[in-house]
């Protein structure tokens, strides 16, 4: 990583927020730069520059399909992960209007799922509670999805805030004749795609591709209807002019990440174990999410009596960039619905997520300042 401060004597910030956005993978940078000069034309046209762009786009699609174990014609490049979620989920719902309008989903889905359901005025969302680790029970989800009028079930592959993996394949196997939408944004590339979805979504900047590239996956034969205005592009499930260079960069990053993941995941998982242990040792601090059946690269914990925003700022001043699900600020008045659904402490919350090259020295440096920062903030309120 580069020294973003650019000043001598100012430490290089340690970026521990890759679950929000992973730095660009070197493989993505190389592919992106090469494709910028080659992939500018409209891939639908018949001239040579267009054929070149089309070749790059088709290549990106093939690579992505191969990495994810899907068919190339099941892959659509979208404008973002959120766009892919909207299209995937609403498209499945649109294909099932004759059956019903209920969407059964885990209570800890990403807000993109919740907002999409709220936007579709005819859709009635039925949240299914999770356990204290943030996991939805197979039986609960399947029972809710077995009610009459259920059009679609939505379950994430893993939770983006606390890392807990969801039993997607088991749910898919036990579901009645209800299509399953899987938001795989938090895990795609890092872990194999779970089986059993009718549509799924992923986001390139979460695995080290460029931002502005999402993946919509629609299973061959799934009943999916475009919920938005159509467009005359190569792929009828998308809209707008394809960002060909970014799609190629996303594909190159995905290929590299899949190739490296056994080694990277093991290394990250061990570092996260160390962070979990050290955070749990801070008085009145609760580490949330499943300790083992989880994403390799992230952990969330909450510290009693601490303002989450103050904690993020204090850590930033010491050179560590982390995220928080707390709402202890005047601007966002609702706490994380994920922590709420788990019954976890919503204030004093910090999410730490590692990049592919985060070192043990960096997590140790973070852990060496964390207890003192928490102590100082508590001292300010006399606790």
């Amino acid at each position, binding site marked *: 990583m580069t020294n973003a401060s650019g000043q001598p004597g100012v430490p290089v910030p340690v970026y521990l927020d890759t679950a929000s956005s992973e730095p660009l993978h070197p493989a993505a940078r190389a592919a992106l730069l090469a494709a910028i000069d080659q992939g500018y034309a409209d891939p639908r046209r018949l001239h040579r520059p267009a054929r070149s762009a089309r070749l790059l786009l088709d290549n990106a699609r093939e690579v992505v399909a191969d990495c994810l174990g899907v068919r190339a014609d099941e892959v659509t490049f979208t404008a973002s992960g959120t766009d892919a979620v909207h299209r995937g989920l609403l498209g499945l719902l649109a294909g099932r209007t004759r059956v019903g309008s209920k969407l059964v989903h885990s209570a800890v889905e990403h807000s993109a799922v919740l907002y999409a359901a709220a936007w579709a005025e005819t859709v009635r969302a039925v949240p299914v509670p999770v356990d204290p680790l943030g996991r939805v029970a197979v039986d609960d989800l399947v029972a809710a999805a077995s009610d009459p009028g259920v059009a679609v079930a939505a379950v994430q592959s893993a939770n983006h805030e606390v890392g807990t993996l969801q039993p997607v394949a088991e749910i898919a196997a036990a579901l009645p004749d209800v299509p399953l939408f899987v938001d795989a944004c938090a895990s795609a590339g890092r872990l194999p795609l779970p089986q059993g979805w009718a549509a799924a979504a992923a986001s390139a900047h979460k695995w080290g591709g460029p931002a502005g590239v999402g993946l919509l996956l629609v299973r061959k034969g799934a009943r999916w209807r475009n919920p938005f205005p159509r467009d005359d592009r190569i792929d009828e499930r998308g809209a707008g002019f394809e960002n060909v260079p970014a799609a190629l960069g996303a594909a190159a990053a995905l290929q590299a990440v899949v190739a490296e993941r056994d080694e990277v995941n093991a290394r990250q998982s061990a570092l996260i174990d160390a962070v979990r242990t050290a955070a749990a040792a801070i008085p*009145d601090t609760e580490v949330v999410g499943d300790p083992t059946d989880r994403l390799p690269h992230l952990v969330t914990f*909450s510290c009693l009596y601490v303002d989450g925003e103050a904690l993020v700022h204090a850590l930033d001043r010491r050179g560590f960039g982390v995220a928080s699900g707390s709402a202890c600020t005047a601007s966002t*008045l609702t706490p994380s619905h994920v922590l709420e659904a788990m*019954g976890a402490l919503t*204030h004093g919350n910090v999410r730490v997520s590692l990049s592919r090259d985060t070192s043990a020295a960096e997590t140790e440096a973070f852990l060496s300042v964390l207890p003192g920062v928490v102590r100082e903030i508590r001292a300010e309120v006399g606790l």
Partner: protein
Amino acid sequence: MELDCRDLLCPMPIIELARHLSDVEVGRLLAVVARDVAARTDVPAWCRMRGQEYVGEDTADDGAPRYVVRRLS
């Protein structure tokens, strides 16, 4: 005993709860009145983490949510 935290944002209602726990005898009730929605999750979470009993939620006279805790230690 009732703590008026109506106009306090999180985590202040929980901080007030911790400060005033010792104002009641072991076995007695302490209530926090808080409009901040985080209190609905954080009062039970505080009870779990601090080994106190969360009794439940009702409403204060003015309709504001009121969270009741029993001091166990």
